[in-house]
């Protein structure tokens, strides 16, 4: 795989390969010396036009554990904050000899442009673009689900599993990537949100849509993924009447979590609005795999960096 811009770039087998490699990476992380020599001498640039501490640190840790050199290029205090264009930044990074670019932007399509505009000919990994996609988040979610829901996860998909994704679908790149990836891996997905937070045009997505979290839970679920309500993106307001009403109808309360089957897990990509979309007792409770998602994120991103930077050169040699 040359780039990872969208889940559309992956076949089912590609996705399983990335998850399997992540399993290998995770095993190495329990050793006393965790650093692998895989990417010695390679330079990975973390190009973050949008603040995101957790994703940036996760990619940084992943690159370092593969012995890559990592350059963090963030909006604050850099030429990016002085209005330098994506194009000029790309030309600069190309001239500096970056081997791969991990890019986060508030603009949908930024990663796609970097990969396709002809400014730079290096692997591009999308670390979240606007309200489009966040493919490594979906991969780490799928990885986490596979570990919990599938016996002998290596080589497996998520066939027959039922996942409910709840919340601000409209503004969520995590939801877009997850709907594509989970369905690619054979899971069935139900989106739950107030109608204004579900995009017009959702009918063409490979998933079901419900306006009732209670009804969706009543149908049974292997996992519930809660999304952050992105109040900063809610231009114009009126997406739902009040936060209290949202919380009551669409929040994952302890009562609702108790109605899930025993084996079901609860995910959240973070950062969480505790007490709003998810009750603290659920976020910290036995079903929650939220902290584990963060840990798995490093393994999955190691795998992705390996696949875009090392896999094809190894095959060639």
């Amino acid at each position, binding site marked *: 795989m040359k780039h990872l811009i969208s889940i559309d770039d992956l076949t089912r087998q590609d996705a399983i390969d990335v998850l399997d490699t992540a399993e290998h990476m995770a095993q190495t992380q329990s050793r006393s010396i965790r650093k692998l020599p895989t990417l010695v001498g390679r330079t990975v640039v973390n190009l973050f036009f949008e603040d995101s501490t957790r994703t940036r640190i996760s990619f940084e840790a992943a690159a370092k554990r593969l012995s890559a050199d990592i350059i963090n290029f963030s909006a604050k205090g850099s030429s990016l904050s002085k209005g330098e264009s994506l194009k000029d930044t790309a030309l600069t990074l190309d001239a500096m000899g970056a081997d791969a670019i991990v890019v986060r932007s508030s603009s949908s*399509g930024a990663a796609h442009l970097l990969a396709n505009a002809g400014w730079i000919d290096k692997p591009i990994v999308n670390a979240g673009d606007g309200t489009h996609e966040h493919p490594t988040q979906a991969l780490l979610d799928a990885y986490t689900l596979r570990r919990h829901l599938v016996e002998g996860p290596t080589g497996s998909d998520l066939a027959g599993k039922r996942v409910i994704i709840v919340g601000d679908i409209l503004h969520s790149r995590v939801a877009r990537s997850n709907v594509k990836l989970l369905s690619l891996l054979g899971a069935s997905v139900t989106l739950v949100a107030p109608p204004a937070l579900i*995009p*017009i*045009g959702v*009918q*063409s*997505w490979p998933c079901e849509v419900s306006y009732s979290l209670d009804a969706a839970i009543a149908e049974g679920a292997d996992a519930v993924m809660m999304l952050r309500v992105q109040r900063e993106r809610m231009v114009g307001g009126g997406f739902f009447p009040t936060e209290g009403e949202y919380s009551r109808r669409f929040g994952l309360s302890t009562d609702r979590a108790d109605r899930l089957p025993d084996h079901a897990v609860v995910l959240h990509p973070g950062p969480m609005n505790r007490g709003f979309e998810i009750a603290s007792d659920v976020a910290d409770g036995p079903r929650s795999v939220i902290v584990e998602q963060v840990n798995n994120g490093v393994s999955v991103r190691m795998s992705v960096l390996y696949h875009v930077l090392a896999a094809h050169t190894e095959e060639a040699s």
Partner: protein
Amino acid sequence: MTSILITGASLYGDTIADVLIDGEDIVAVGPEATGRVTATTEKVDGTGCILLPGLVDLHTHLREPGGEEAETVDTGTMAAARGGFTAVHAMANTTPTADTAGVVEQVHQRGQEAGHCDVFPIGAVTVGLESERLADLGAMAESAARVRVFSDDGKCVFDPLLMRRALEYVKTVNGVIAQHAQDPALTPNAQMHEGAVSAEIGLMGWPAVAEESIIARDVLLAEHVGSRLHVCHLSTAGSVDIIRWAKQRGIAVTAEVTPHHLILTDEKARTYSARYKVNPPLRTQKDVDAVREGLADGTIDIVATDHAPHPRDAKDTEWDRAAFGMTGLETALSIVQATMVDTGRLTWRDVARVMSEKPAQIGLDARHGRPIAAGEPANLLLWDPSTTATVDPADHASRSSNTPFEGMDLPGTNRATIFNGRFTVRDGELVHG
């Protein structure tokens, strides 16, 4: 000034006849034309070509004053001549805004100096396009620029009372309000058509209803106060239905469609290439089919380019940071030929109506859109429909290269544009002076 004889061309694609031009007018058509040729008459072989009245664009952004990096009156009117136009109406969203007699007179004057076609400035409806109070509509109408079309294009005259007052006031000059129909409250930060594609690629939606609801309101206002309304760049199937209904009621409404809305769909946004970013946005195939049908059956009166040049940096960037708009003057007739003529929806006589006669009537341009007949102004286009060429913005006269048609093979070439009896384009090349 020498006389010009065009031989063998098909007038409106109907009848082959020779046409003799002397001075600024057509002096003879048919056998009489050949009889009056003198030793100095320039002859143009029009065999195989269509002779049309010079095209008239009711919706052009020339960008001057203030946006000269993208286009000037000079470069924009050269692009117009290349496209077969002999008159363009220059939109008011310049810097400063064309909201006073001084600015519209300057633009008009620059057009006359450039000499590539007539430039009819469009006056702003409201001061600074701010939708707060009416601009000096009367002063612009009475100025040397003789403004008759008023528009805040780029912005909608959203306040219904202000729109009513504008419609009422332009009756004093037999003017028309050209509305950019977009409810701003329904389109915050809107980037592209709201539908399946926007949902998938994560760009903020611009719903069809934001256009349709304004058009519905405006036709009712125009009916109520008995004024002329023109709807700019109509883009949705629903808008076509509303205009059809309004015309059946006898409301004095006219509507335009752009070449790009006749051929491109929102699927183009999947490239995230901002060359496809335009306002109103590219819609779905269903909408493209509906605007083609509306243009064919006369519901949509005219084709107007919404030629919107932008400097490269304004397009070579992330979609949500990029400017809205596409160039269009130099590709307009090729797109109309491809989508409407070659598909049998319009005849060349219909093309003369929708790209010359009707826009000139809406804009009250006395010397344009006239019949090809003795005694009429010599504003003409000689078009060869038999050729095919690949669009390359490097060949364009426009200062900007933001065409969405780059690389497309399009039919037809401009053999000659004649403006007031002299060539502005001959054998496809611009003629200066």
